[in-house]
C-alpha cells in the first residue's frame, strides 16, 4: 500500500470514528439481545426435552432439530424477506435478534440437556432421599452443578453468535461491518479497513471470552470445585 493511501485512511478514520462507534454499539446490542433470547430458548427447550411427557419432549426435539437444521442465514432472510409476504413486517433488528436467539437457542438447548444429563444420578437420588421436591432438586442441586458444565460451551456459542452478526449488514442494519465498509469505500484503503474490522471483532471476542471464563471460575468456586488458586 502507498504512503498517501495510509495517510488518507488515517485522516478519514478520525472522521469516521463516531460512525464506527455507533456501528460497534449496534453489533454489541444485537449480540447481547440475541444471546439473552438464546439463553431463554435454550433453557425452555433444554428442560422441555427432558420432560417425562412424550408430547412435550417430542415437540421440543422437533423444534430444536428444525431450528438447527434450517441454517441461520436462511432463517434471517426468511424473517426479513418472506415473512412480510404473509403480512407480518418486523423491524430489521427484530429479525436479527429473533434469528440469532432461535438458532443459537436451539444449539444451547442441547448444551442444557447434555449438562443436566451429565450431573451424576446419585445427586438426584440423594436429594430425593432428603425429601426435596422436583423444583427444589433442580434449583438447588442439579442446576448449580450443570451450570458449571454449561458455561464453556455457552462461551463458544456466544462467540459464534458475535461472528454471525455481520449478517445484519445484509438486512440494512448499520452494524460494525457496515460502518467500516463505508470507510473502506470512501478511502479505498481496503487492506487497512478490513484488518481494522477483523481486529475489532477479535477484541470483542476476546473480551466476551474473558468474561465467560470469569463466570466459569466463580461458578466453580461456589461449588467448591478448584480453589481460588486453581
Amino acid at each position, binding site marked *: 500500500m502507498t504512503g498517501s493511501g495510509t495517510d488518507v485512511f488515517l485522516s478519514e478514520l478520525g472522521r469516521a470514528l463516531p460512525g464506527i462507534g455507533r456501528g460497534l454499539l449496534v453489533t454489541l446490542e444485537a449480540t447481547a439481545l440475541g444471546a439473552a433470547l438464546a439463553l431463554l430458548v435454550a433453557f425452555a427447550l433444554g428442560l422441555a426435552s427432558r420432560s417425562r411427557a412424550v408430547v412435550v419432549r417430542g415437540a421440543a426435539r422437533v423444534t430444536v*432439530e*428444525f431450528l*438447527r*437444521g*434450517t*441454517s*441461520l*442465514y*436462511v*432463517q434471517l*432472510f*426468511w424473517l426479513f*424477506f*418472506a415473512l412480510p*409476504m*404473509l403480512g407480518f413486517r418486523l423491524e430489521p433488528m427484530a429479525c436479527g435478534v429473533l434469528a440469532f436467539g432461535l438458532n443459537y437457542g436451539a444449539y444451547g438447548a442441547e448444551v442444557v440437556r447434555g449438562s443436566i444429563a451429565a450431573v451424576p444420578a446419585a445427586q438426584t437420588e440423594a436429594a430425593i432421599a432428603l425429601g426435596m421436591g422436583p423444583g427444589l432438586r433442580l434449583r438447588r442441586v442439579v442446576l448449580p452443578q450443570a451450570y458449571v458444565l454449561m458455561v464453556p460451551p455457552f462461551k463458544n456459542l456466544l*462467540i459464534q453468535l*458475535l*461472528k*454471525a*452478526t*455481520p*449478517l445484519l449488514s*445484509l438486512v440494512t442494519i448499520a452494524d460494525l*461491518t457496515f460502518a467500516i*465498509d463505508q470507510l473502506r469505500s470512501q478511502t479505498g484503503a*481496503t*487492506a487497512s479497513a*478490513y*484488518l481494522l*474490522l*477483523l481486529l475489532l*471483532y*477479535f477484541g470483542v*471476542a*476476546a473480551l466476551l*471470552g474473558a468474561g465467560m471464563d470469569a463466570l466459569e471460575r466463580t461458578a466453580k468456586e461456589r461449588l467448591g470445585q478448584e480453589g481460588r488458586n486453581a
Partner: protein
Amino acid sequence: MWDMDAARAALPVVLSGFGVTLLATVLGFAVAVVAGLGVALVQRSGVRWIALPVGALASFVRSTPVMVQLFAAWVLVPGLDPLTLGVLVLGLHYATYLSEVYRAGIDAVPKGQWEACIALSLPRRRVWRAVVLPQAVRKVLPALGNYAVSMFKETPFLSVITVNEMVHEANAFGSTHFAYLESFTLAAAVFLIASWPTSLLVRRLEARLAH
C-alpha cells in the same frame, strides 16, 4: 400468501443452487480436513518459531467472522473465481476449528501407545501414520461430522462473494418474481431435509464409537 405456481417455478432454481452448495461443502471440508491436520501437527511439532505464529494466526481466524474474511479475500486476492476463493476461505476457517478437534483426539491417545512405539523404536513417521493418527481420527470422527454439517449450513455466506449457491439463487428468484416466501421456504426445507438425516447419522456414529 403462498403461491403454488411460484413454488413450482422456484424449485428447479433452488435445486440447481443446491448442487453448488453441495460442491462447496465437499470441497471446503476437504480443505478443512487437510489444513486442519496440518495446523494441529505444526502446533505439536515442538518447533516454536513456526508453531507459535501458526497457533496465533489460527486463533485469530477462529475468532473473527467468516463473512468479513470472505469480503477481505474477495477484494485482496485477485484472479480466483468466486467458488474457488469461497471454498478456500471457508475451508481455512473450518481448518482452525478442526485443528482443535484433532488436537483433542491426539491428546486422547493413551500414553502407553507412545511408550510402546519408543520400545519398538518405530521411526517417527510410522508412529504418527500407523499408531497415533488412526486412533486419534477414529475418536474425532463424530466431531468432524458435526463440523461438516455445520459448514454445509454456513455455505450461504459464499453468496456475499457472488457464488451462485442455493440461497443466492433463492434470493435472486425471490427478487425477480417477488416470491421470497416460496423461494426461501424451499431453501430452508432443502437445508432441513439434507442436514437432519446427516446429523442423525453422526449421532449414531458417536454412539457406536463411544464404547
